[in-house]
């Protein structure tokens, strides 16, 4: 159940934060475009989107915190190790989260109260912080692919510059941003299907960013093949007939199917203008982003750091238990804990769905 809880919270978190990155970009730019062109409908649409975002961004954050606390409870040694070495990447993300949250508050409550230029500047702050938040977290993901930058002398520490030069990070970060845009554009294309002009525009944007994401995805796979072969073999080594310790390639195929579906659905929508096609593209984008993230996270199972071959054997032996997902904290393996978790999670997620429905109904 531990992996299922981690996957659930992480999957929902990823869905909401991908939407957050996209909306934080679209909202201020759309409002600005409306102001410049005198198009009130753009401004009104931007406001509606902001209202939705202001009501729901908190849960994305809370699910991220939930994921961290679950990790802390299930794998406390891993969090202890990460805390001791990863100050800079975590600090980058956390400080930007604070900035992002306050810029949301000022942007939402400053609507019509701040001057247009000041309001736009706050919007740019909201956008930039959202784009930069994943920088630190993705650096951690890169580290989990292969611990580049980990140095043992004079004491265990992380060489931040080297860590930021990790090839998997350098590709994964822009891929994540473009995937966020693809998801948001297709969802907006479906959500705004009554405004055909805008909806078509978002579908076109979505297609472009989808193509870029796919290209970056191929590059990411190649970096994994080179520096994290264990993970590569688990995720998609079947293509190259590689031996997989924990074969999860079915998730890769699942993801690819939905990438293809969103591509076809978006093309169909541009040709036929039928809103069903836009909805299919939006839903497929959500499924492919979540499945892609889960594929990335789980393909290194049971190791929390996928490739430790560069570390001395005595260090690997010392970290063996800490970095093994199959060896959780013994106090967390009780069925009663899972029952408590489900008893809280299920009604709370239902209430959240109700909140989303209430806000999107306006």
């Amino acid at each position, binding site marked *: 159940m531990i992996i299922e809880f981690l996957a659930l919270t992480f999957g929902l978190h990823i869905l909401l934060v991908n939407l957050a990155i996209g909306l934080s970009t679209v909202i201020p730019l759309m409002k600005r475009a409306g102001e410049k062109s005198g198009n009130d409908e753009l401004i009104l649409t931007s406001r509606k989107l902001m209202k939705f975002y202001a*009501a*729901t*961004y*908190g*849960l994305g*954050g*809370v699910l*991220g*915190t*939930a994921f*961290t*606390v*679950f990790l*802390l*409870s299930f794998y*406390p*040694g891993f*969090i*202890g*190790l*990460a*805390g*001791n*070495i990863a*100050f800079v990447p*975590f*600090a980058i993300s*956390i*400080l930007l*989260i*604070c*900035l*992002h*949250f*306050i810029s*949301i*508050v*000022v942007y939402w*409550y*400053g609507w019509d*109260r701040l001057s247009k230029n000041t309001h736009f500047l706050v919007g740019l702050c909201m956008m930039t912080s959202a784009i930069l938040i994943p920088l630190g977290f993705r650096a951690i993901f890169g580290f989990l692919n292969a611990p580049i930058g980990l140095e043992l002398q004079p*004491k*265990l*520490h992380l060489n931040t510059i080297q860590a930021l030069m990790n090839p998997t990070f350098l590709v994964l970060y822009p891929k994540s941003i473009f995937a966020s845009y693809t998801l948001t554009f297709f969802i907006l294309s479906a959500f705004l299907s009554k405004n055909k002009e805008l909806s078509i525009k978002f579908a076109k944007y979505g297609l472009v960013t989808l193509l870029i994401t796919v290209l970056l995805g191929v590059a990411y796979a190649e970096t994994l093949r080179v520096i994290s072969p264990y993970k590569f073999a688990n995720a998609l080594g079947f293509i190259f007939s590689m031996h997989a310790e924990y074969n999860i390639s079915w998730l890769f195929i699942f993801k690819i199917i939905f990438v293809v579906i969103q591509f076809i659905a978006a093309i169909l929508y541009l040709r036929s203008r039928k809103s069903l096609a836009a909805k299919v593209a939006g839903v497929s984008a959500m499924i492919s982003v979540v499945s892609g993230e889960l594929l990335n996270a789980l393909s290194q199972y049971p190791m929390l750091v996928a490739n430790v071959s560069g570390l001395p054997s005595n260090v690997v032996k*010392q970290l063996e238990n800490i970095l093994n997902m199959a060896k959780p*904290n*013994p*106090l967390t393996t*009780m069925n*009663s*804990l899972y029952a*408590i978790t489900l008893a*809280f*999670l299920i009604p*709370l997620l239902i*209430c*959240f769905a109700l*909140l989303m429905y*209430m*806000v999107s109904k306006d």
Partner: protein
Amino acid sequence: MNWVSYPAFADRLLSMIGIEVHWIILQYILGLPLMAVIAEIVWLKTKDEKWLKISKTIAKGFIMVFAVGAAMGTAAEFGLVLLWPNLTEIAGKYIYFPLYAEIFAFMMEVVFIYMYYYGWGRLPEKVHVLVGTLALIGAWFSATMIVSVNCYMQAPTGILLGSYAKSFPKLTLYVPNSIVSALNVTALQLAGMDVLGKTGNSVIVAMPSKIVKVIVADAISGKPLSKSILWSVLTSSAKTKLANVSTMAILDAIMLNTVKHIGVYTITFKSPVFVPSVLHAVGSGIVVSAFTVMAFFGYSAYKRKSEHAKLGYKYGVLFSLVSIIYQGFVSGHEMGVAVAEWNREKFAAILYGSPPFVEKIEYTLAGVKNYISYNQIPLWLRPPTIIHWLYYTKITLAVLLGLSTLILAYFLFIKKRYVYSKYFLILPLIAQLVSFLGWAVREIGRKPWTIYGIMDVKTAHTINPPPLWVDFLVEAYFIGLLIVLCYAVYRFLWKAGEVKA
């Protein structure tokens, strides 16, 4: 002893500022939903629209600050992970449950606080009140979980106090029989360990904290048993078998067994200071909220003379009066008794330098007969004496707050006169300061420990602390964010004075 002289001062200061910014904001989430829901219930009963307006204005206040408070909570959480990773690891291993459950509380807050705001006019009235109540329960639930962890750090479940000459304080541990058989029990007893009893699979012992803290430090630093303090108390046959076993493995075996016996889900709630601490922390949130509401509506009434603002002011004064009486005479008193009984060193440091008659009064009020003075505490257990000044500044300001509320209430309810001055805006700031000082006494007074009797500050600290300039920049950043938030509230809520929900 000087507060600065304890280890990791710069990182302690950074943690203090980060957590305090979070605490400044989250107190409104503990108090304002209560005030908003009560005002809404009064509106439902009386159908007086002024109460609805009061409720909406208060709700808008906590909606505005909630998100930033939550973000600062995340920052505080990661601050603990990054600056005190060894504390976080130990907490995650042995007392994870309240942190785990707090996530559900946090989710309750996020869902129901926004539903309360967006549900106005969309949900049936009684359902709306229920949603507000659930938001309030979420906030108090969250506070209870976090405070319980802090209580374990102040007075862990199983801590035993007694004469320093007999090696107290000691921690109750359930040592598995397999480990007992490897230990030279006589040597441990000579070092101050007491055998308290037995269970089916373990021996219950009272282990001196001076030994526990070294075992924990050895375990955290990755020492094998052959280099740990335990080496000297292993039997010779165990030495040949266990030399390369990690101290952490032994610590884990003892602590996990102890937690299982005490209660995996309940261990932090059994801390002897848990109940008064929760009552006092939630009370603090209510006091700060009440004074802020009083100042806001008072200012609004003073500027605009509107009837709903005058009623809101009355509501704020009444709430302030009741809450500060509760905080001072009920929860504050209970907290003081708990500190005197379970945090003896802290209490002695609070009284350090006080005239003997004050010391006597404080101990009499706390009901403690056999007390110690600061100079009787062994050097390695002494907390910083700065808490003496912090405590008495807090008490003085709290008394001033109480008196000013009493005067305002006298004029308002007895003389039926509306009294207000723009200088009253300082009252919520003083309430915040009192709350900060109380928290500072609690946290600074725990030094030299991070978890009393178990882990000291040095052991909890990261092996890679950030440079000083980074500490300084992050502190400035947090304070800057707080200033921006205060300005946003002032500009969009306080100055506007009217609700546009």
